[in-house]
């Protein structure tokens, strides 16, 4: 068997391109050629199907974090005091 042929990328082997298209499809409409490429690859590749599910979950989580901005960390009280003093000063100078 020709080794070079084995190393050639195509729509069945190229997980790298398929996962790039997975990223792209979440934000914009793919061309019909790219949609076909991705569909054919995903149909035969469980690993990339897993990637796709997780990629969407990660995007959804990031969108939620960005939208809701949950409080994970709190500013220290010293910095808050400094902020209050700055605001106080600015208000008094107005």
């Amino acid at each position: 068997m020709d080794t070079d042929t084995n190393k050639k990328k195509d729509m069945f082997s190229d997980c790298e391109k398929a996962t790039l298209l997975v990223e792209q499809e979440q934000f914009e409409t793919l061309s019909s050629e790219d949609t076909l490429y991705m569909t054919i690859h995903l149909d035969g590749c469980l690993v990339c199907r897993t990637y796709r599910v997780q990629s969407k979950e990660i995007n959804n989580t990031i969108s939620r974090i960005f939208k809701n901005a949950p409080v994970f960390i709190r500013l220290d009280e010293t910095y808050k005091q400094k902020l209050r003093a700055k605001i106080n000063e600015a208000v008094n100078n107005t």
Partner: protein
Amino acid sequence: MTVVTETQTQHMGIKVEPHLWVDEYADYLYNYAMTRLSDEEVAKDLIQETFLSALENVGKFEGRCTEKTWLTAILKHKILDVYRSRCRVLEAKKTRDSHNMGKTFFQEDGHWNVSDQPRPFSTEQAGKLDNKEFQSILLRCMQKLPALWMTIFSMKFMEEENSDNICRELKVTAANYWVIIHRAKINLRACLQKNWL
């Protein structure tokens, strides 16, 4: 009790209460900035700038939205300025970030390296994707991304920016832009697999 604790600013019948801003909004705004910038000092500076800028422009606040929404919009505008300045610096320096795509996850023929293949989340883990622990690990993983990747990736999730605008502003070609998003995501997912699964 300081003077400011009793201060209210009033114009056009709209009452703003700067003396309450730190207690009511500082932590929220700080987290908002940290998730998008991953830089403690810059985030702190932006909170201060946001409050002072809001005070200077209090006459322009017409009360069509809440104080919180108004302050968040000012902060968001400042975050976009930071993104732009970061990109200018990165563009000028032509840092390794834009050329070095880091670890290779794929073989020559495009297949995943066996050790890098995504493993399915178990049902129990999948159910925890909403929880704070997962979100906190995700944010830590985002903070490990190279600055350019983090900036481009974060901008993708800023509500008003579409990818064409980002490409134009960052002077990154569309092809390179998607390669960066892809690399950022692959690294992020791998970091989650390592630290959470």
